[in-house]
């Protein structure tokens, strides 16, 4: 059995590796399609032909793109993300702190969003059809249909400009004490929780409802179990698979999807880094970011799958 599970997991990891490769190629071709090259863009208004030529030469941009990509890929296998075209800093250094920031933001958001979503989703499922349920369902839709920047800006206006409770910007570096971390992260976390939770709530609700109408839950109730016991101890464990999957998908958004939040709260994360990369055609940077997003996504999905596998004794 144990080996079987390990087999399954190995299988997942294998396919993830394949996906990674596909992504790196896709990203390469996408970026290769981008018009304009780094040198021209760096020089901006000052892009006189000779200046461009000079800079290109200085940046080894005159080599064929595929060669550069291949070199980068090989480097990647040795754990080297390459060097940024734009400022000759190792991409790893550029990403380093920002990656940590992104992870921290994602982590804190998860810490609040997931329990909240689960609670709402499960209760909504338990009292299916009730007023409470309807309110929750409509609200979730309502909330996801408000543009992200709208939520963020409103939050800032309310909490920072008028109430002056929280800072309008969140500088990861200022976080010294725990209290401060809360203060600094409050705003982006609130925004992201709004953005991310809705889908998790919906899926949780659906998954739990599926398992509530099963004979074994009925059996539990006929054993005299309370509704709560029946749902939490009998329905929920069997809904873990789909719920984990939904959560993973939603959380993957927190890795690369938070560009708007990063912009509005001036939070230095990788999403913004990649946007910079795109606008400066800094291929190594773009590719590295893309790979990171992909890895993040795959890790979450794979993790979800593994959870599902472990939660289900039949395949265990």
């Amino acid at each position, binding site marked *: 059995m144990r080996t079987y599970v390990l087999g399954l997991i190995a299988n997942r990891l294998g*396919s993830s590796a394949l996906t990674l490769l596909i992504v790196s190629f896709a990203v390469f071709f996408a970026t290769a399609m981008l018009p304009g090259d780094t040198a021209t863009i760096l020089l901006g208004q000052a892009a006189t032909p000779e200046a461009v030529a000079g800079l290109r030469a200085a940046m080894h941009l005159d080599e064929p793109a595929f060669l550069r990509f291949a070199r980068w890929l090989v480097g990647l296998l040795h754990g080297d993300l390459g060097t940024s075209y734009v400022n000759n800093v190792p991409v790893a250094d550029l990403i380093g702190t920002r990656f940590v920031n992104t992870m921290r933001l994602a982590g804190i958001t998860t810490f609040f969003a997931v329990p909240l979503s689960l609670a709402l989703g499960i209760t909504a499922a338990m009292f299916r059809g009730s007023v409470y349920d309807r309110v929750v369902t409509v609200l979730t839709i309502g909330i*996801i249909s408000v543009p992200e920047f709208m939520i963020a*800006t409103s939050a800032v206006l309310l909490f920072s400009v008028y109430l002056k409770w929280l800072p309008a910007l969140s500088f990861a570096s200022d976080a010294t004490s725990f209290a401060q971390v809360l203060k600094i992260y409050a705003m982006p976390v609130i925004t992201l929780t709004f953005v991310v939770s809705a889908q998790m709530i919906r899926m949780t609700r659906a998954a739990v409802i599926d398992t509530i109408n099963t004979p074994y839950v009925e059996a539990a109730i006929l054993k005299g179990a309370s509704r709560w016991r029946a749902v939490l101890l009998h329905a929920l464990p069997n809904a873990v698979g789909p719920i984990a999957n939904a959560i993973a998908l939603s959380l993957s958004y927190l890795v690369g999807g938070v560009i708007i939040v990063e912009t509005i709260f001036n939070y230095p994360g990788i999403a913004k880094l990649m946007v910079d990369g795109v606008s400066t055609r800094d291929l190594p940077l773009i590719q590295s970011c893309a790979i990171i997003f992909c890895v993040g996504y795959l890790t979450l999905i794979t993790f979800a799958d593994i959870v599902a596998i472990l939660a289900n004794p039949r395949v265990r």
Partner: protein
Amino acid sequence: MTTSTALSRRPSYRFSWVGMIGLSIILFWALVALLAPHIVPYPVGEIIDEDYFGPMSGKLLLGSDYLGRDMLSRIIMGARYTVGISLAAVCLACFSGAALGMAAAVIGGWFDTVLSRLLDALNSIPSKLSGLVIAAAVGSSLGVLVVMLAVIYTPGAYRFARSLAVNVNTMDYITVARTRGEGISYIVFSEILPNIIGPLLADFGIRFVFIVLLLSGLSFLGLGVQPPYADWGALVHENIGGLPFGAPAVIVPSLAIASLTISVNLLIDNLPKKIRDRSA
């Protein structure tokens, strides 16, 4: 039970009032979108108001935007783009996603594996960023926008449809169809699709919301509909400066978006049910 078969069975439908409301709002916006050019009070690009972020008034029913253009006209025209683009994109995404997903489930084997990996890869790149890259590469005309949004949301639809189809695929009636010698397309569209259409529609609804949002998200990144026109998301964004004054220029389009997305989902959650009433 044969007793009840005697009495006539004209198929009757049950349609909850919630669904009704949803439908009517959608129809309203659809109508607005269709008639837009004929009902706009002012040209979309024309600057009428000296002031900006003007309040609601008899002259400008929904006030003016950051340039002093008539908000009502802009929202009416915006309906065209938001409704049009999102609908087109979501249809494209859900259709291709579902088709591929079901095919993958039915055919299985390497076809399934490769396709799943490929779309996983596509899915793993954050939507806004891929949007940014695509738009930077091929510009952002309407066509490109629709295709882009569709491409971005196909993997999700695929994942979902596939997971549903896999379960249906194990049913005996699929085996029966196979042993009858039916082809893939028949099995996919005639045997599987009718059984998962419900969940697919629900997925369609939520995906529609996401696309409307991504559209506004893209406007934040400076992509989207060409001026002087703008989709609702873009309207919210370009007028967000009016938020502190509660200017209708920012409130109204937000409400428009909410009303549309919510009603789409209300409708889909409460689609008219054909009454299958078996006595006993």
